[in-house]
């Protein structure tokens, strides 16, 4: 399987780690960055979690007693806590400034183990800047719903929790991919492609596009935003393989593909699988075009964040691979 980072570096691209000082994070995971080009600024939401993902890859002979895949929380606090930081990046993609997203105006007491807005993607719709991801702390059973947080001066000014369009009782809605050139629209499912429109006044959503499935690859889950690319829209999705070992301990592997739609939401291409840095747990929350290069922000093992720059000359060959 192709390592996208290796391929990119070999073809004139570059990679930059996204790191904020450890005194803000206690050294635990920086993950799932979401890059967004906001006119002439490069913004990036960076998720911080209070756990360390411990995932045995390779021979898997150094598993701990939790198994090959474990989320290592503090022993006295098993809550999974997410805090988001908004970064502004320099032209060379190093961090120019960073600031914790202040959610105090909208926060309420969490009711479940997972706290905070997870895997937030950055969008600007109708001249407002939002981060949008899943929140699971508003009910006692961890029900997940996509939320939009309106960000003004790095403060969460308003919070919109969106109902699922067809199944109001669904347990967890997540990884809807915001469509940057269609305000308040998401790709809810990739194949068969389902596009939903959300109304932040009523907090409802409705399916406005539902296509027939294409081929056999229908376990494709959302990842990045959906961006315009010429006469197409593109994104990165992830696929998951989940299983248990002989000790009934869970394990997982994620892989990734580019998806290319035409402007009518017909899937025109599904790329070959790739990984980012040869990790089995990697995740992408952001893609953006910047000065004709393609920026891809991703996490490695839930523990480190990077931004990859694919030069313009390589974009087509990669996404159409």
């Amino acid at each position: 399987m192709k390592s996208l980072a290796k391929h990119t570096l070999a073809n004139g691209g570059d990679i930059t780690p996204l790191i904020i000082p450890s005194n803000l994070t206690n050294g635990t995971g920086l993950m799932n960055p979401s890059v967004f080009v906001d006119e002439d600024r490069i913004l990036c939401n960076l998720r911080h979690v209070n756990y360390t993902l411990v995932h045995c890859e390779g021979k898997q002979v150094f598993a701990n007693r939790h198994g090959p895949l474990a989320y290592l929380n503090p022993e006295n606090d098993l809550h999974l806590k997410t805090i988001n930081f908004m970064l502004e990046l320099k032209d060379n993609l190093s961090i120019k400034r960073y600031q914790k997203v202040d959610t105090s105006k909208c926060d309420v007491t969490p009711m479940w183990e997972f706290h905070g807005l997870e895997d937030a993607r950055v969008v600007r719709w109708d001249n407002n800047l939002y981060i949008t991801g899943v929140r699971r702390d508003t009910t006692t059973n961890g029900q997940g719903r996509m939320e939009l947080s309106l960000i003004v001066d790095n403060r969460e000014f308003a919070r919109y929790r969106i109902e699922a369009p067809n199944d109001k009782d669904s347990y967890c809605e997540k990884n809807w991919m915001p469509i940057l050139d269609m305000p308040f629209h998401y790709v809810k499912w990739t194949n068969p492609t389902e596009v939903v429109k959300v109304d932040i006044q009523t907090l409802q959503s409705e399916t406005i596009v539902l296509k027939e499935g294409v081929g056999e690859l229908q376990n494709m889950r959302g990842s990045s935003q959906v961006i315009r690319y010429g006469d197409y829209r593109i994104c990165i999705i992830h696929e998951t393989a989940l299983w248990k070992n002989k000790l009934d301990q869970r394990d997982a592997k994620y892989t990734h593909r580019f998806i290319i739609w035409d402007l009518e939401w017909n899937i025109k291409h599904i790329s070959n699988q790739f990984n980012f840095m040869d990790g089995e747990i990697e995740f992408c929350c952001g893609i953006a075009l910047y000065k004709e290069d393609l920026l891809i922000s991703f996490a490695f093992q839930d523990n480190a964040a990077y931004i990859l720059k694919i030069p313009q000359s390589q974009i087509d060959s990669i996404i159409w691979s």
Partner: protein
Amino acid sequence: MELILKQYIQEPRNSAICFKLGWEYEKIGQTSSAAGLYLRATEFGDDVELNYEAMLRMALCFEKQGDRWFMIKGLILRAISLLPNRPEAHNLLARTYERCRDWQEGYTAAIVGKKMGTDKPNSITDLEYIGDWMFDFEKAVCGWWIGLFDESLYLFRELKDKKLTDSYKQSVINNLSALGNNWKAPIQYNKDNYDNLRYKFKGAKNIERNYSQCFQDMFVLSMTNGIKGTYLEIGCADPFYGNNTALLEQLGWRGISLDIDPQWEHKWAENGRKCQIANALDYDYNLPDLMDYLQIDCDPPSVSFEVLKKIPFHTTEFRVITFEHDHYTDETKSIRDKSRRYLKSFGYELIVSNISPDDYSPYEDWWVHPHLVSHEIIEIMRDISDRPKRSDKYIYDIL
């Protein structure tokens, strides 16, 4: 970091590169990133030493994050399973147990670690192992909390004189300060122990009980074989409790008892005994040519030695001397040797060295003038080995 990151991207399954990238992350406090890469180094690597170090680095990363003890212990144990004779993991295991207040486990791990971890440390990075004294430190801390007070204090005292890091040194000093002094209650002789006496001096059969802390009175009576003698007692303290001359006086001895602390004067008078409140360094020692017993017991031991030098040995001979050097607490560790040289220079012979109330606290030497004491008794009573001698075992000859 960016260079190593690019090396990693070229060879993501090269365990040495994974380790190096992890180390770069750890150096800037990104311990989750580091831990993930260290784990990757182990899973893709066959170098046992690198795997050992990577497991321990993971443990140290989680230690920095705090409150991940369960995982930390597992990682360290796994490292020990790879290289059981390397000391670094054993040390971290004992330290981890100590920090978790798993005292029994920590004490045992320290002992096992010191015994097993005999290979030379050999790591690329600092695994926080400095020397095998670290096992003694953990043993001392954990031992205290499982009730091994004497051993704990002994180990701390021994550590205090070793070359430790500043933080450990301070910790040892703090522990010694917090755990208090080690004054032991007197171990009392009673008649039932007569048959066990090392030397059954004249009149021993009639003795009901004694008063000294560590059988000094029984030693003096043994060496002088029941005579009614004279004494000079410097640092007499309480008239009975732990006192070295109370029994002698009851047996007809007479002498001078000095103490610098005025509190004792009244108590001695209340108990029908007489002591002089005086500074032994300024005292006018107008003594006869021969006295039977000299006690010097001042604090700190440097004062005892200064007092020793004030005694007119050129004009007065003593049959028996007990000198408290407090070697176990003497920060200079010099007083014992100085006092030995000094007394030998006047012809005195060391009969019992390093008397201790327990197995760990050498605090006195006992001497005689060989011309004034029976050689037969000297042969019976002599024990000048270096080890601390618990006084009851000595006086009952059960060493």
